């Protein structure tokens, strides 16, 4: 049963030190900014973060990294023009990096949510990112065995929720939200608004409410030019 929280802090709830936290978004698009701010404010440390990127500029994820609160990041593309906090932490050896091809990241997260114990994929075969991994030729194609990635908490940004936690997203901000929501012990979603159950088209729900522990409506969630319902 989904909680409808009043603030980002209340939605976030307790995240213990050492937790694994998934953070949605592809760069800024779909990043749950206020929830990550709340995570920063909570003081939780020794975190493992699973996220496509490692923070932009001085955003909340970048500050988590800067402040040494992230022990390890599982990520496809930490290097960005403005990823200076990650770059510094990495060069100083203050953060561990597991670099994962983006499609493997998505599929491994899905596997965790779908009860798949491991899967073979061609992606990464013969590259440094597959070193030490089990391989097998299947149907003539050399493949690598990849394992699920799960988290204690997933923080995602969606466009709109209903009161039972169903989520719809907006444009390419959808990205990692729907798969991360399935792969965490607890998923928290920030949205632009929360509507009554029955107000979302059941055919168009992207994340069913079963995956969502808490939602919080934040005015700033979809602060974009020309944003429509």
């Amino acid at each position, binding site marked *: 049963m989904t909680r409808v929280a009043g603030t980002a802090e209340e939605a976030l709830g307790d995240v213990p030190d050492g937790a694994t936290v998934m953070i949605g978004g592809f760069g800024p*698009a779909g990043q749950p900014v206020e929830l990550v701010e709340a995570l920063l404010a909570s003081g939780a440390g020794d975190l493992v973060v699973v996220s496509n990127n490692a923070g932009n500029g001085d955003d909340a994820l970048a500050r988590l990294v800067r402040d040494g609160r992230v022990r390890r990041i599982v990520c*496809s593309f930490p290097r960005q023009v403005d990823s200076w906090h990650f770059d510094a932490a990495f060069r100083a050896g203050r953060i561990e990096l597991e670099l994962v091809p983006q499609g*493997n990241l998505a599929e491994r997260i899905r596997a965790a949510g779908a009860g798949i114990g491991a899967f073979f994929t061609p992606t990464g075969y013969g590259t*440094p990112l597959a070193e030490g991994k089990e391989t097998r030729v299947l149907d003539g194609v050399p493949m690598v065995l990849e394992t699920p990635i799960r988290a204690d908490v997933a923080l995602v940004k969606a466009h709109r929720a209903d009161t039972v936690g169903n989520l719809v997203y907006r444009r*390419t901000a959808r990205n990692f939200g729907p798969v991360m929501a399935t792969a965490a012990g607890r998923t928290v979603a920030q949205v632009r608004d929360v509507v009554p159950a029955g107000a979302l088209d059941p055919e168009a729900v992207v994340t069913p409410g079963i995956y969502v522990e808490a939602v919080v409506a934040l005015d700033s969630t979809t602060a974009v030019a020309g944003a429509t319902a």
Partner: protein
Amino acid sequence: MTAHDPLTGPLTSPLTREQLAARVAADIAPGSYVNLGIGLPTLVGDHLPPGSGVTLHTENGMLGMGPAPAPEDVDPELVNAGKVPVTELPGASYFHQADSFAMMRGGHIDVCVLGAFQVSAGGDLANWSTGAPDAIPAVGGAMDLAVGARRTVVMMTLLAKDGAPKLVEECTLPLTGVGCVSRVYADRAVIDVGPGRDAHGRAVVVERFGVGHAELEDLLGLTLGGEG
């Protein structure tokens, strides 16, 4: 061998970036589903003829991607894989990361055009890491794109800025994918590699731009097929 028609006849000098983009675009069949890698390959989109029915995929979760928006229409929630604002064409659709990469990895994209640091005659690709010891590693979707599409081609300059050949016998940089590239479109030549190389294991020159076959072999330090 002559340059492609849209480039207005035989060339006596290497292709410009835009000419190269047009050359790549000319080989994309009408109705194809195409993914254009970040950087140089993005230019190909501008050279797809209107009405060709080519649909662009962006691996961050969209089919039916359109060109850059007018400044007033920029939507930070509508970006391509390079995190650059784009637009939505009629018939577009959105999907999440696992579905988007399933589309790529499942062999549904007809053509993927990627940039490269190095490509080998066998079609190996190195395009994600310079191997520099102090570099911050980042891979993004490169490895998925390299092996996922029906046909993966590379668009690049033939030589690096320091003059080193980028088409090589064996890649020395960390690999992105093994035997995945079938053709290289470069400023001085179009060259088949990987499955399209000849029985001697040589990359095969398909077309040259302002450079002779022997000169090309000298530039690259390789023996190439497709003489004449």
